[in-house]
């Protein structure tokens, strides 16, 4: 482009500045993220190959920490718990959230109030959720003692102190917290479905159930996928709920990998072992996120 002469050097400086302004503004946070997130990921990965105990050591020892990790019953329990917790948490939250959304979508009265009630748990911190549910599920304080007080002496609901059932207590509290959020996600998607499609299906003779299962829900596939990814990474990084609800107990029966990592790194002076478990968690997250991001990006390019 031809530029008018005179004062042109001045202008080019300004031009350059305005061209690089976005980069300049983004740069600090970019550098901070680069350092504190990706830098520490690399650092953690490195530490996991060392024999660090109370303080980081930098002498590479190979896969020793990983062999130790896989030999520990405590890690096995934590990882199995993650699988159980993840599976139940994700499916139950999706199922309940979706069901609530479909029910609310029937244009019932007081919909706004109900929506708020269901959504509120998401606004509460995991610590509060955990503490409240701990009281409710405590055999001598909560539901069990209440029902016994009503006269049903043989009633038992002591999962929270049962080694095999404690992780399901965590599932219950977590599902209670997340399903309202899933519901909100689905409800807004349901509201954007073209009502004429529903009418057309009615005229074609489909039942309401069939319309939802056969036409509307399949068209919400992207929402399912987003909800799944959100819930999946929430479940892998779950930490505070276990701390507040069961404290990982009884024993270490309800610990999750994040609790394991914290325990090893900050309380037992096993930084190397903790780092190895952190890397395992990162790989688990990556196993979910990478295919998702890949399909998202590929979808964008094709669209």
């Amino acid at each position, binding site marked *: 482009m031809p530029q008018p002469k005179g004062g042109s050097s001045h202008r080019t400086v300004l031009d350059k500045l305005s061209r690089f302004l976005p980069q300049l503004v983004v740069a600090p946070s970019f550098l901070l993220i680069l350092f504190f997130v990706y830098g520490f990921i690399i650092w953690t990965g490195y530490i996991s190959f060392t024999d660090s105990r109370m303080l980081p050591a930098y002498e590479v020892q190979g896969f020793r920490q990983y062999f130790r990790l896989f030999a520990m019953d405590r890690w096995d329990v934590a990882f199995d718990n993650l699988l159980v917790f993840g599976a139940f948490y994700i499916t139950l939250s999706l199922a309940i959230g979706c069901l609530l959304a479909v029910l609310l979508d029937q244009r019932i009265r007081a919909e706004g109030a109900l929506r708020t009630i269901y959504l509120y748990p998401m606004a509460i911190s995991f610590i509060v959720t955990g503490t409240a549910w701990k009281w409710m599920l405590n055999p001598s304080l909560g539901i069990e003692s209440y029902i016994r007080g009503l006269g049903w002496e043989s009633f038992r609901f002591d999962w929270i102190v049962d080694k095999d059932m404690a992780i399901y207590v965590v599932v219950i509290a977590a599902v209670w917290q997340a399903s309202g959020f899933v519901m909100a996600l689905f409800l807004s998607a349901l509201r954007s479905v073209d009502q004429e*499609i529903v*009418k057309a*299906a009615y*005229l074609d*003779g489909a039942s309401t159930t069939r319309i939802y299962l056969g036409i509307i829900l399949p*068209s919400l596939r992207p929402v399912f996928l987003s909800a799944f990814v959100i819930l999946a990474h929430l479940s892998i990084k779950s930490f505070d709920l276990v701390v507040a609800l069961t404290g990982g107990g009884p024993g270490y029966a309800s610990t999750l990998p994040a609790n394991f990592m914290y325990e090893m790194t900050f309380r037992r002076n096993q930084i190397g072992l903790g780092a190895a478990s952190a890397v395992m968690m990162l790989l688990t997250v990556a196993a979910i996120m990478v295919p998702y991001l890949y399909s998202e990006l590929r979808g964008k390019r094709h669209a």
Partner: protein
Amino acid sequence: MATLSIENAGKSFGDTDVLKDISLSMDDGEFLVLLGASGCGKSTLLNMIAGLEKVSHGTIRVDGEVVNDVHPKDRDMAMVFQSYALYPNMSVEKNIAFGLEMRGVGRAERKAAVEEVARLLQIEHLLDRKPAQLSGGQRQRVAMGRALVRRPKIFLFDEPLSNLDAQLRVEMRTEIKRLHQTLKATMVYVTHDQIEAMTLADRIAVLKDGRIQQIGTPSEIYNTPANVYVAGFVGSPAMNFFEVTLERDGDQIGVMLPAKLKGVDTPYFLPLPAGGQYHSHIGQPVVLGLRPEMISQATTAAPEDPVITCDVDVVEPTGADTLCVIRLAGRGAKARVSPAFACEPGDSMEFALDMSRACVFDAETGMRLYG
């Protein structure tokens, strides 16, 4: 094949009455167009016929049977929607076959039916695609196919062409007309496009604010509109309206219409043929309606038509005709002349007024007086 009749039907959403006292009846194989401006209740009426909206009062009968409380799927009607409403997750073939599947039709039979309809609509090559992979016109055809395949008693169309471009709209219009002639099915068609209504309909029902203004054949609606609203809504360019007074001149009854000539209003007495019927209205204000084609060049007019001379303000050639804007009774009026006779803007020209087709409306109620 079916007859449809609606008796005193009304619809209220809460306190607002959207439809009031709708009555109409349709013969077997008739093509009825519901015509009206946006928001007048056309879609609501169509949804009531289909059973997608409850009827607040009155009855709807199909083949004489009251269907007010019959479930939509048991009414044996099919509808084509404005947004096409194709099922996004199903292929074209599945979309078309869905209604049959829901009615328990066997797989082989479904396939045959879909193929027949696809051939009729020339969409055979699209059967495996998803709706997202189709153009607007193709989606439109699929939506029609979905309605056709069930061979319903009554077809309902809710502005099916309004999302298409002008050329495709004309094409599909012809196609719908051909379909109607082939199938001889009863069809109700909603549109706000008066040309679509005129070209397609056996009869048109003009709606305004939830009331039927007039039901009649396109030529009845066009030539003898029931009121000022219908007269103004149908026809393009719109009918010219003049506020005048009925007067007697000798044994003739007519109106006095001032025409602007060389900047001065010159009054002309225009006798109404069959003016005798207006006898009791003499001296009363009326609205005279003249369509642009009723004001034309004097050269080729019938000898009995009154002739006026007036200034031409604006000339708008449209190709086949040229529209001249002139000033009659203090307001701009459009005259339709043959391009061969059109003059330059600013010139004055002689126009003949075809008073035999003029409409006279009551100034107060807007209703047409006689004829």
